[in-house]
């Protein structure tokens, strides 16, 4: 079986149908049996002058990161695509519109910046679409037709994807799109007959369970629904909005509701209220919104109310880079808020985990009666992967509520100081289990109590409870079982995919490296992490933030300083960058 690992980019201006085209490539290749990881970047403005780029990495083996070298660039706008030219492979391929609407200067031309060796496929996208369907709107589909023809992809895969996508818009629209696609396909077969490249030939399509294309956000939405979410409160913010959109459609049929609140403070307040009353509820936001929530999150910590809060990180601080990816909310998630307000923070690393962790967060919140924060980021939220349709086992969906013993009726200590810190939780209105819930420091009964002894004891109790959650949390995962390595690379969140691919690549190059995935950010498995670190002469923690949040949190576990790789470019870290850093560290003979 030939190994296929191809990165395709579609680049255009907002309005060119770029994102749609990239989506169709992902769907078609997924249908063809490939592993697909897709990620789009688009301008901050809803309808601006900005650049849209879709990246699709298509492989015959499992994929966990994007590559920084592109094999195929489909340009729907050459001025915008120029910025993608440096990322092309030496023998890459470029599809571009050979008859654009206006003349371009050399300074605006894509063809002018391509290196010798890059193959050009000029097709009159707009003209083809217009000729075939009477309108240039299908130019992106003509481009896809050319791409499919030249690269040897079964056009029926695309036709099926187009049918699925446009069926609902009526037969005329569907027909126009199919015709535009076919026009591009025919044109390329005819005009590039001697320049066809069977990029995707030779793959035996894996028969088995059909995979679906799923984005991180959709996986989160589906996880929440499967977990029995009753109420969602939220306020829109990029990149978390799609979760609300998903739930707005999916929740009502299951008897749930989505409520858009006036702001994030109201959202978290409503979540706490609903949870207090016993309903599974959640909210999702991004950094700026999360900051507004912190005060009430600590209220949940203090009053020991379950809550699920999803923080989809983006470039910060403040409004920052609203449509770019970053992992710079970790410290805010773990430490943000007044007082000693420990809470549970978990961070999935891929789309499947987005589902799994969301389901898990509800169990954790209920069992440990505390806010649980799920940390994702723009790249993870918006990337699409083709995954086996996610589902949960009964065990995973089981409710882990700790309810009070009936013997305690009439003498109910809502905040009973237990060995693991978990106090049995009654819901408001249960006869004989009345209690006071308050943000003031309180006694085991819930009555305000500011005595020094009580605050000391109850603080310890709450922190003990969080520590005890470790038993239910996902353990750090080590990927190569070497007894001793020169360098261990630790990754979290969406960056872990790059860490994994980089260490695989480094090992192929003969370097002694290993990788550790950390998904439980707080509390974290100090013993396991330390054990891993002890096998490694050096530790490298690549993160998409400037301050090295995870390194700050766990770096002290290593017996010397950990090395950091902090990039805040707004884009995922390419594996190649990590590989270079690994090589630099190992060859640099750092003592």
């Amino acid at each position, binding site marked *: 079986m030939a190994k296929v690992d191809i990165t395709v980019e579609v680049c255009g201006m907002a309005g060119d149908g770029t994102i749609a085209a990239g989506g169709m490539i992902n769907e078609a290749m997924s249908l063809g049996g490939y592993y697909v990881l897709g990620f789009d970047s688009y301008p901050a403005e809803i309808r601006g002058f900005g650049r849209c780029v879709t990246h699709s990495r298509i492989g015959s083996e499992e994929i966990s990161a994007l590559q920084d070298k592109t094999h195929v660039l489909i340009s729907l706008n050459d001025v915008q695509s120029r910025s993608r030219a440096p990322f092309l492979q030496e023998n890459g391929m470029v599809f571009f519109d050979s008859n654009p609407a206006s003349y371009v200067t050399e300074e605006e031309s894509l063809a002018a910046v391509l290196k010798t060796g890059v193959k050009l496929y000029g097709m009159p996208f707009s003209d083809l679409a*217009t*000729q075939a369907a*009477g*309108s*240039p709107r299908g130019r992106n589909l003509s481009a896809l037709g050319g791409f499919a023809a030249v690269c040897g992809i079964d056009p029926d895969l695309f036709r099926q994807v187009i049918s699925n996508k446009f069926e609902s818009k009526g037969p005329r629209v569907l027909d126009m799109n199919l015709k535009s696609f076919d026009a591009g396909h025919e044109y390329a077969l005819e005009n590039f007959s001697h320049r066809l490249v069977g990029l995707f030939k030779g793959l035996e399509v894996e028969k088995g369970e059909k995979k679906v294309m799923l984005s991180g956000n959709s996986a989160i939405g589906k996880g929440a629904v499967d977990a029995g979410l009753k109420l969602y409160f939220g306020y829109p913010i990029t990149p978390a909005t799609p979760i609300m959109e998903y739930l707005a459609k999916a929740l009502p049929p299951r008897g749930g509701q989505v409520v858009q609140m006036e702001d994030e403070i109201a959202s978290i307040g409503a979540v706490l209220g609903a949870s207090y009353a016993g309903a599974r509820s959640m909210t999702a936001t991004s950094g700026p919104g999360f900051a507004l929530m912190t005060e009430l999150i600590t209220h949940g910590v203090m009053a020991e109310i379950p809550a699920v809060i999803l923080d989809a990180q983006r470039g910060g601080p403040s409004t920052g880079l609203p449509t770019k990816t970053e992992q710079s909310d970790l410290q805010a998630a773990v430490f943000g808020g007044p007082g000693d307000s420990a809470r549970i923070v978990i961070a999935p690393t891929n789309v499947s985990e987005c589902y799994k962790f969301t389901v898990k967060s509800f169990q954790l919140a209920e069992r440990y009666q505390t806010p649980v924060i799920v940390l994702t980021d723009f790249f993870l939220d918006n990337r699409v992967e083709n995954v086996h349709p996610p589902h949960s086992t009964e065990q995973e969906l089981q409710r882990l509520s700790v309810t009070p013993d009936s013997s305690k009726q009439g003498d109910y200590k809502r905040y009973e100081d237990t060995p693991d810190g978990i106090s049995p939780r009654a819901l408001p209105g249960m006869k004989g289990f009345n209690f006071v819930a308050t943000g003031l420091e309180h006694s085991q009964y819930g009555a305000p109590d500011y005595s020094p002894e009580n605050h000391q004891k109850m603080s310890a109790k709450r922190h003990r409870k969080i520590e005890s959650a470790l038993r239910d949390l996902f353990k750090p995962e080590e990927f190569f079982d070497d007894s001793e390595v020169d360098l261990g690379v630790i990754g979290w969140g969406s960056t872990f995919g790059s860490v994994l691919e980089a260490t695989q690549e480094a090992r192929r190059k003969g370097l002694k490296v290993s990788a550790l995935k950390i998904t439980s950010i707080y509390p974290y498995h100090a013993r396991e992490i330390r054990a891993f670190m002890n096998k490694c002469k050096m530790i490298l923690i690549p993160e998409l933030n400037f301050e090295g949040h995870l390194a700050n949190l766990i770096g002290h576990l290593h017996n010397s300083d950990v090395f950091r790789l902090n990039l805040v470019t707004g884009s995922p870290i390419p594996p190649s960058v990590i590989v270079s850093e690994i090589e630099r560290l190992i060859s640099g003979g750092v003592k």
Partner: protein
Amino acid sequence: MDHVNPNDVWAPGANDRRGPLVTYSRDAADFDYMRINVPCQSACPALTNVPAYIRSIYEKRYGHSYELNRIVNLFPGTLGRICSRPCEDRCRHGEPELGEPVNICHIKRAAYDLKEPGHPFMAPMFSSHHKRVCIVGSGPSGLAAAHDLSTIGFDVTILEALDEPGGMLRYGIPEFRLPHKVLKYEIDSIVRMGITLKTGIRAGTDISFREIMSDYDATLIATGCYVSRALNVPGENLDGVFSGLELVMDIASNKSPNLGKKVAVIGAGFTAFDCARSALRLGAEDVTIFIRGLEEELRVTKEEIHDAKKEGIKIKALSLTQGIVGSNRAEGIEFVRARTGEIGSNGRRKLYPIEGSNFLVEVDSVIVAVGQSAQPIAAPGDKNDSGILIGNSDTFQSSEPGLYLTGDFLTGPSTVIESIASGRKAAERIAHDLTGKRFREWVVRMEEAAITDRHRSWDFIPRQEMPTVTPVSSRLVDRRVEVELGLSSEAAFEESKRCYLCNLHYEIDVNKCIFCRYCIDNAPRDCIKLVEKINLNENGAIDGFIETTNWQKVNAVVIDNSRCIRCGECVRVCPVDCISVTKVELVEKNLLAGRQ
């Protein structure tokens, strides 16, 4: 029968309120707009309403299409074959990235070919002024003037020196390009207006100009250019050296001069090509056209060059004739090679002989077709050094009251369509001089229009080329075989779809536009612009835009009608329906009762 609506074209807009809103403009800005934005109509010396007649072909109203032509150019069937096609050079479809120009000329021929045989013409007439006009010469300019003067209400007589009317159309163009029956049909339809045509009478010889001028209120000389220019080289008078014009006139009179097997033609115009192709039809086997300049600068149409080559004719460039050699008969031509120089102010390339590069070409006969000039004529009035009567090219007047000049006789050799336009303008002047009134005027007619029913995909239809007689050998059997076969109704229909209909004017209402730019996304080219400022010329017509890509500076989204190909895509995608379409055309209106 399907007629041009007199209200639309000839009459003032009294009844126009019944249909869509129609307005007429005499504003200089609107004429400027037409010049820039409806290039085909403006390029035509006779201002033929090209988009309208092509549209009629699309509607399969062939007679209507023919009439739209005839009201301004009088010879649609003829012009549809031999016009020099200045319109096609300006056709927007021929702009570099848009493909080939519309086959405007051959569509015109299709109107002639496909109309019903008995289709009558509407020609609104003015009542008689009881004045008589004599026109000397029945070529295109003379006939055009006769037609117009007749419809305006004059009593017109044409004197023709040769046996048949038509001038150069009849005697200067071989029948394989223009069959006599086509020409006759169109001349007949002019003469039928009540014109008296007298052939075989050479004015100045058979009857004196004094006599004519005393008989008529005005006299118009339209005798064209019938004197062949000479090369002025040694040997030009040898046997076997033919004048190109005389040769084609002989052939038109059914004579068959013997040219031998190897024929050289010296000259670069239509006549040179006609001679070369005629030579093949007279039995020559090896025909070469020697031109002074470069092939790419030839003024004949590229179809003409291509057909000539296809028939086996060779073209040799940069050859300056030094002399014709031979003892009794021409046996060879001596040329010298030329180097190209700059293009002079007259638009012609300067050529410099390369000293010592002389070469000899053996021939059986030589045809010299290097141009014509007017013939001296025994008429009163000021003459130039060559003894040719001179006149004012704006007023058509000679120095002699009542004696007018037009066509090639006035201007020197020109094209048929220019001659027709010249004849019509001379007629207008004569009518004005004789009555003090104006009878017609050009105005810009504007009519609210629905969005075009064109499909964008029509822009990709290839140009429907004229089918010709094949194999080439069967063309040469009889010199009367017309080489071009005419477009079929299907081909004419396809070709008519290619016309962008530049007479539709698209405009965005800035007050309704929400700057969504869907129109720009769907534009076929850079025809819709984000504009900071619109420049106007001194007449108030749009004269360029200051574009911007800075969103803050955008003041309007504007359709640049000089770039617009009228695809209608913008109208179809506009969410707020802010783009209006107006049909604009130059039309000649009759002024009721003749306005002062």
